[in-house]
């Protein structure tokens, strides 16, 4: 296999003095590029446009969240896009700004673990019932939940983010 290709920068050798180093009377100017006094001229150096500027454009950070590319089924990391047709249920859970499922874990006082399910729309009490049923099936106990109708979110006692994310993704949200 061939060796790695290293990018070497090109040197352009010219005999010129920079405009801001005021030359004395004994200096011979071969190519008076930076001549006129009082003229707003660029500093001595060749100006190279777009040819290398594309490398600079690559470095500028994007300001908007990019649209994820299309995948056939779940991606290798486990991420999957929402299904094109929203599921026919009385509730809806939208994706976050970064195209993820809005389930988050929270800890207060060092030992109080909760899971928050945000961005709910529609009949939140039906979703609450479904979540309770899911957790009853998984853990065998009744997990207490809190429904906040103003922010349209559900807070569940305990860390169940992985299970709920999987369940929502499998539903197609």
């Amino acid at each position, binding site marked *: *296999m*061939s*060796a*790695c*290709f*290293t*990018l*070497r*920068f090109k*040197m*352009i*050798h*010219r*005999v*010129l*003095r*920079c405009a801001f180093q005021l030359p004395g009377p004994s200096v011979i100017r071969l190519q008076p590029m930076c001549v006129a006094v009082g003229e707003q001229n*660029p*500093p*001595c*150096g*060749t*100006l*190279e*446009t*777009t040819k*290398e*500027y*594309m*490398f*600079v454009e*690559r*470095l*500028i*950070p*994007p300001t908007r969240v*990019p*649209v*994820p*590319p299309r*995948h056939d089924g779940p*991606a*290798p*990391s*486990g*991420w999957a896009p929402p299904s094109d047709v*929203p599921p*026919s249920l*009385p*509730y*809806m859970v939208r994706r976050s700004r*970064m*195209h993820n499922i809005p389930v988050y874990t929270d800890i207060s006082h060092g030992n109080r673990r909760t899971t928050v399910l945000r961005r709910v*729309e*529609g009949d*939140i*009490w039906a979703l609450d019932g479904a979540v309770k049923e899911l957790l009853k099936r998984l853990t065998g106990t009744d997990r207490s939940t809190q429904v906040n*109708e*103003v922010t*349209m979110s559900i807070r569940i006692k305990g860390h169940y983010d992985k299970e709920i994310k999987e369940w929502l993704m499998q539903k197609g949200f």
Partner: protein
Amino acid sequence: MSLIKKPGGKALDVLQNLPRITLANLRPEPGSKQKEKRRGRGQYGGNRSGRGHKGERQRGTRPRLGFEGGATPFYLIIPKYGYNEGHSRRPQYQPLSLKRLQYLIDVGRLDPSQPIDLTQLVNARGVTIQPQKRDFGVQLVDEGAELFSAKINIEVQRASEAVIAAVERNGGVLTNSFYDPISLAILIKPVPFFLRGQPIPKRMHPGEEMVPFYMDPCARGYLAPPEQVQQARLALAKKYGYVLPDLSRDELFHMLSSRKDPRQIFFGLSPGWVVNMADRKILKPTDEKLVQYYGS
């Protein structure tokens, strides 16, 4: 199907139908407020007010925390040892797991068809580097090595053997390269640097302790000779039991084999150049001495 989002729901119905809420109508949930303990009042709070009987306890003249009545206390009898000595001079590397890297590629925040270096990772908001907190770059961690399946040309500052194997198994290329703190600050935030109008500086070489690591072909150091790196790739493939894909037949071979010069900070841009973002131009020096300095 249309879902009407009705924030408030039942609570809003209750609010609309009951009389106006005023201070006279409100009361805390029974059991939520517990009365505070008032010392020195009544039959049980009075008498000694919870201070005990005589002595330093009642009189409030107990000695300092850690005092053991005159015996050499625990915190003085244990000898000192420099566990944390020089902690603020130790280089730190922000971890990035292969699982997160795969996630960033899947969601489209990282472009695998271009070489991935620290600028691309920071632009994708995949890691946050703080050069002021002794961060020297990013390290790849092998969590998620089994589910990693992207072919990339990635440049990090530290990577373990398992990570290198995971990347090369999928036909990718990994390089460990060094950035001194000034170059690192420029690398993670190129736009504010270009707006300063200063020429791109040369990247400095690593210090004495780090040179062996960056010259080690097994660690894919950027200063290691390419032939030894190739031998190390074959050896690692044998060790981890996978077939090393032949990169020379790949259509992305040019991208996968592109690497930065040891003195270069950005791909395609040499030290000494000044970037003019307003006019979309690059100025290059022509003075002999400058060219010689930036070329060394």
